[in-house]
């Protein structure tokens, strides 16, 4: 793959999948806090 294509792939992958992973981590943290309350 060309360098520019690889860069845009990484932008998409990090933006979308990274964002999703962060949201899931947040969700789990909130769920644990709810349980401990």
């Amino acid at each position, binding site marked *: *793959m*060309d360098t*520019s*294509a*690889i*860069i*845009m*792939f990484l*932008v*998409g*992958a990090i*933006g*979308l*999948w990274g*964002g*999703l992973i962060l*949201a*899931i981590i*947040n*969700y789990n*943290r*909130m*769920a644990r806090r*709810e349980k401990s309350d």
Partner: protein
Amino acid sequence: MSSAMQDDVTGARDQWGTKLGFILAAMGSAIGLGNIWRYPYVVYENGGGAFLIPYFVALATAGLPILILEYSLGHRSRQGAPATFHSISERWEWLGWWMAAISFVICTYYVVILGWCLSFIYFSFGQQWGEDTGAFFIGDYLATSDGAAPSGFWDIGGIQLKVLVPVVIAWVMVYVLMQRGISKGIELASRILLPTLIVMLILIVIRAVTLDGASTGLNVLFTPDFGALRDPGVWVAAYGQVFFSLSIAFSIMIAYSSYLPRKTDLSNSGLIVGLSNAGFEFLAAIGVFAALGFLAVQNDVAVNEVAQSGVVLAFIVFPQVISTLPGLNAVFGVLFFGCLFFAGITSMVSILECVVAAIREKFDMSRKAAVNWICGAAAVISLLYVTRGGLFYLDTIDHFVNAYGLVVAGLFEVVLVVWISRRLAQQRDHLNATSYVKMGPWWTISLKFVTPILLTFMIVYGIWKEIDGDFEHFPETGRYSEYPVSGLIVLGAGGVALTLLLALALSLNSRAPHDQYVHARQE
């Protein structure tokens, strides 16, 4: 509380079994056919990798804000869309009914595509579509009449038995899930089908990227053309993709969130659903274009000669890919069409559920009766798409209800909440009271200014393109511009007008059990 909305056994209102179950069901609703067969081509056609910039902007300023707003509307009112809008302003109940009517129309043809997927799972064994996959799909399977001529478009012909049988099977599956209810039907199906769908897509992507020529396809997909960002059409495409992909304005998310327990993190659930939907279609684009690159290299042609979207991509181009594979052709076929079927059926039940919720609340009906009436009526109408002209009717109605039904309804929804009833602060307070991620100025500015302006621009741009005769970006079949004007007016514009009239008629009906429901909640 309206008795019909209570569970027959426990006496409690229908509710998701778990919060995870709700997230999976909402993901199942958002992830549909368009993620697999529309998004890859939209990226390719609108600047390649550069498209990700307007796509991220659209996701942040329209997709996620509207999605989270719909969660808040349904969760706060704990009712379907008509009753939710009725509780905001009695004069706007029609908007909820319009959304429900549009959803009803969509489910009448969506199930037919599920039937096609079932057929093609079967055809994958032995690649029964032969050498000329276009002739097989259009001629042998659908037995489509000549839609280019006015007489061809209206040549309904007889019902095609080989299409009818899989459509009936798809209807039976959908009906059983709907009858089983929220937690035992839709949630259970989503818990099984959604993880399976993701695993299947990952297998497809792994196989596709290891094929000869995959990098050629991925280069075409991701190489950025930043000059394209100066074209307003690219930005419209990004907002359109985000809007249609997230099941916004169907009223699905209002109905789904109404079944959530009081204490639920709505904002974070919305972020997970929105980002997983976007992440899924990004993955699908990799699989699709890696496979298209392989096909292009095998046929010694450029990727743009095989790049397609919609029905043509799924049922004409992909069978060619499957036939050309060096081995395990049937397995790849079952995975691909199985993916489409699983993505489609979880969306289909969500589209039906928002109609069921609306009817049950309005007419104080049991789930069984509501599902019987709605599935029965939709099944009869879906026979129209099983005829020789079915593909043309599906194409026309799909274009009009999406472009002039959903987008206009979405615009009205935002304008009603933000500018007419001025309930945005109330909705934000509701969200922030239960959510870990707080909605702040970004959410408010997006919904107050960005979303209404962009949706208005989308509508005006779409109409301008229609008048200009530049239809090729819209249709699933690529044949839209050949259809007779009579067909576009009667089925397209007429279909949208009919949903609007139906919505107005239902909102004028004075019998409204949800009035008691609203009042009970307020007390």
